[in-house]
C-alpha cells in the first residue's frame, strides 16, 4: 500500500508521517506519496514495523468530535 493510499483511507495518518520526517530527512507527504510503505522504509531507513504499528493505532483511533 502506498503512502497516498494510506492517507486516502485515513487522513489522520498524516500526523504519523510528519513525525517521521526528521528521521527521513524529507517531507514524506511530498517526496514519497507513491512509494509503498516498505519502499519508503528502505529508502529513508525507517523502522517499518514501528511505522505500521503507529499507522494502525492512528487508524483505529476514533476521530475527535467536531464542534
Amino acid at each position, binding site marked *: 500500500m502506498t503512502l*497516498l493510499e494510506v*492517507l486516502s483511507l485515513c487522513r489522520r495518518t*498524516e500526523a504519523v508521517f510528519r513525525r517521521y520526517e526528521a528521521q527521513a530527512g524529507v517531507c514524506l507527504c*511530498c517526496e514519497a*506519496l*507513491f512509494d509503498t510503505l516498505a519502499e519508503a522504509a528502505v529508502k529513508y531507513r525507517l523502522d517499518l514495523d514501528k511505522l505500521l504499528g503507529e499507522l494502525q493505532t492512528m487508524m483505529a483511533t476514533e476521530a475527535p468530535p467536531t464542534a
Partner: protein
Amino acid sequence: MREEKLDCRGLACPSPVLQTKAVVDRGDVAKLTVLVDNDAARENVSRFLQNQGYTVIQEMREGSYALTGVRLGSEPALITEVAATSADTKILVLVGTDKLGRGDDVLGGKLLQNFLITLKEMGKDLWRLVLLNAGVKLAVTGSEVLASLMELEAAQVQILVCGTCLDHFQLLDQKQVGETTNMLDIVTSMQLADKVISLT
C-alpha cells in the same frame, strides 16, 4: 463526461493530490484542471493524473502552475480547447540524435551542443524538448550539454527522455535531467504543440 477545476493554491502536500484523487474517484471526468503553487504539488498531482490515464499539460499562469489532465479517448474538441486557451506559442523540439548534420561526427556533436545551448533564445515559446534514440545520451551523466538542459528545465521547459531508448542504451540509471517518458506522451505532445522542430 465532465470537466472540473480545482484550486489547490495555498495547500501543502498531500492536500492537492488528495483533492485531485477525490475528484477523479467520482468518475466520469474527461478534463480536470488543478491550480497549484509549489513544485512538490506540481510533480505529485501530475504524476497522479498520469497514473490514472490522463495526459497532463503543465502551464505557468501568473506565478502558479495550471495542470490540465485530459483523458485519452475523450472528444477531440477537448484537446483542441486546451491548446487554444494558452496565450504562448508551444514549440516542441524533437532530438533523435547526438550529432547535427552529416560529414564529420565530431563536428556534428559540437554543432548539436551549440544548438542546445542556443535553444534558450526561443524564450517562453520553447515548450518541450523530447529526446529519442541517441538523443537520450544528451541527458545522462557525462553529457557536455547537461548544464544547458538543466537551465532549460529550470526555465520551465519540460524535457521528456524516451525510456525505451534509455533502456536500450543501458542508461536508465544515468539520466540526470528530464522525465522518463513513453511514446504515448511523445505523440500527444506533438499533437498539442503549435510547432514541432525535429532533428533526427
